């Protein structure tokens, strides 16, 4: 049988050679040679050195701290151990309840609102502010709310009906270092529903709202009195309105050949008719001149003159029509002039005609189709000041003509889905 070493008797007292001495935390006094299982005690002399006889306590000053945590970590996290000896509630709060009611990894910020620089509710973190007022940063519609809370950091669940008093139950309000939560409308539990966790469903909803916003429905309301959409079964009342359209670029247009030829033919016909009328009026007035007074002759001359003036106003066109009398030279000249007319007619600066269609749809969207180009029509910048259209002739008569007010402004943006 092996020998069991004898246990040395426990002895107590100073100067027994034991340098390391516990502080009453389970150390075995006088157990020389045994390693302490707890934290090493201070090597300083015990409190007897300060001479007061009282035990020195170490009270750490804990500043406001931040905890950045991931959602999964937050959700899975168990409440941290709260050491019973530590009476500082702030630590407990910060670690214990932070997993509740938190969405994304948002910064928790617990701050004691003291001093002249205290900012009140705004200092309690952005999550609180966002959760209270709804999401009003302009990215998402106001109907979509983003939540965040510092109540969650206080250990209050989103659906918890517990009052703040419960959460504050352990806090000594007389302690200057205790956290202060301003009891305002923002963080009352009655509004706890607003502090929901933002989920994927809400993100999908936000995307749908954005899609709806892409099509501006306010334009349709403004066009109602113009095109009489509202009234059914009765004659539409068309209002006359002046608007400004903002387009990224004006497409180029050309007159079709068929249309061009037809327009030239009509023009030629008009000139011929005018000449014939002028010639007929001259023949009619000649016999009358012999019998009439001078004054009447002057008046007939005056009647003839405007017709000539009209012909002159057409430029060189009055020379062209007498093809039968001019011969080959006349024909060549006519062809040159016709080409000039064609160029003039097809010149982009002279083009006018129908270029497309503006449609108002049942959903309220307004679209414009110019050729094959599809454009979305949306409300333009809302102008608070007066706007008008002025036609100015700077190179001729130096005149300005005020044409009227600009009532609305619309923006046309190309529909990239149809183009790309």
């Amino acid at each position, binding site marked *: 049988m092996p020998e069991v070493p004898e246990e040395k008797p426990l002895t107590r007292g100073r100067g027994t050679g034991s340098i390391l001495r516990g502080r009453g935390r389970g150390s075995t006094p006088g157990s020389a040679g045994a390693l302490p299982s707890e934290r090493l005690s201070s090597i300083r002399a015990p409190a007897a050195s300060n001479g007061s006889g009282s035990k020195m306590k170490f009270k750490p000053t804990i500043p406001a701290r931040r905890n950045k945590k991931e959602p999964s970590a937050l959700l899975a996290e168990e409440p941290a151990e709260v050491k019973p000896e530590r009476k500082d509630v702030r630590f407990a709060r910060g670690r214990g309840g932070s997993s509740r009611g938190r969405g994304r990894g948002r910064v928790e910020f617990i701050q004691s609102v003291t001093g002249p620089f205290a900012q009140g509710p705004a200092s309690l973190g952005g999550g609180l502010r966002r959760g209270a007022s709804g999401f009003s940063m302009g990215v998402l519609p106001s109907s979509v709310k983003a939540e965040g809370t510092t109540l969650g950091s206080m250990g209050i669940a989103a659906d918890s009906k517990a009052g703040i008093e419960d959460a504050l139950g352990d806090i000594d309000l007389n302690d200057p270092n205790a956290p202060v939560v301003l009891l305002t409308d923002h963080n009352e539990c009655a509004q706890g529903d607003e502090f929901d966790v933002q989920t994927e469903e809400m993100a999908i909803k936000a995307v749908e709202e954005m899609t709806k916003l892409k099509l501006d429905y306010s334009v349709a309301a403004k066009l109602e009195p113009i*095109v009489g959409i509202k009234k059914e079964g009765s004659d539409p009342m068309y209002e006359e309105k002046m608007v400004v359209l903002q387009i990224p670029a004006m497409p180029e247009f*050309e007159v079709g050949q068929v249309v061009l030829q037809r327009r030239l033919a009509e023009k030629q016909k008009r000139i011929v008719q005018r000449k014939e009328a002028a010639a007929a009026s001259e023949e009619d007035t000649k016999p009358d001149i012999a019998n009439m007074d001078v004054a009447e002759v002057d008046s007939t001359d005056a009647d003839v003159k405007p017709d000539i003036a009209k012909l002159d106003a057409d430029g060189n066109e009055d020379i062209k029509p007498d093809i039968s009398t001019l011969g080959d030279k006349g024909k060549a000249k006519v062809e040159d002039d016709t080409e000039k007319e064609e160029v003039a007619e097809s010149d982009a600066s002279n083009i006018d005609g129908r270029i497309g269609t503006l449609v108002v*749809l049942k959903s309220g969207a307004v679209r414009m189709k110019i050729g094959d180009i599809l454009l979305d029509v949306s409300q333009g910048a809302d102008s608070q000041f007066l706007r008008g259209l002025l036609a100015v002739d700077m190179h001729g008569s130096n005149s*300005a003509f005020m044409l*009227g007010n600009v009532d609305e402004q619309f923006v046309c943006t190309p529909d990239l889905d149809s183009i790309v």
Partner: protein
Amino acid sequence: MGDNDVEMTEPSKGAAATDYGLPDDEIVAEIPIYLTHDLAKNLHLLQYPQRSGSIKPGELLPSVARIKPIHGQIEMDIPLDVQSPMYNKERGLELGAGLSDNNRLLDITTLVSVNIPKNSTYAAGVFQNGELHLTPIEKITQLRPSLKYLDRVAEKELAASKLDIDDEEEEYKEVKAQTVQVTVRSAQAEEALRQQHNSIAFMHQKLEEEPWSKLLYFDVGTEESNAVYSKLFASNREHLTCKDSPDEYLTKIIGSTEANVFQDI
């Protein structure tokens, strides 16, 4: 539908908007769009930043209007109601010294045009009888009050306070000989001169040097304005052919996206 026919503006109500990229939607109203260039070179969008509401006939009617044809600057003298109980005649007399030396009240406010650079294409649209007629806008102009009368008042006060001293300085200047320095322009000097010509100060100087011409102003509702207003409507109703395809239009807006753009990378 032939080109000779006038386009019918009967709305195809209830039809699916397949041609407009929304096949699930219905057309409620269809508005034909016409383009005209009769006033394209003359149309100005006027903005009055310090006024609100709408322009009524007789309102903002200038007593005198001026124009600098080369630079396109417009000035309008809008009369003030000096008989109004809200008008301070004493102050009006003080400030009227900036207009003339004859104890004139400040009875006008001068609006000066400022050109606003266009970052996009703007077109004036007029709705009439269920049709939309577009005319491209040439310029966007803002009319702002001119405070030159304050400068003249300040100059007069300065001149009055330093009258004697100025006389002595002028005599001295007459006696003093002026030295003239002749230099030959180098290439650098040419470049500097070119930059000077492009500078704002130089352009402003050129603007100041151009004389004013009288501008005939016709208010809204007058016969002349109504006659010009009728030019906002296209006379031809035939279809025009769009020369730009959707891709070409996109290229026109955003520029070329070919590979040579990325050569520097």
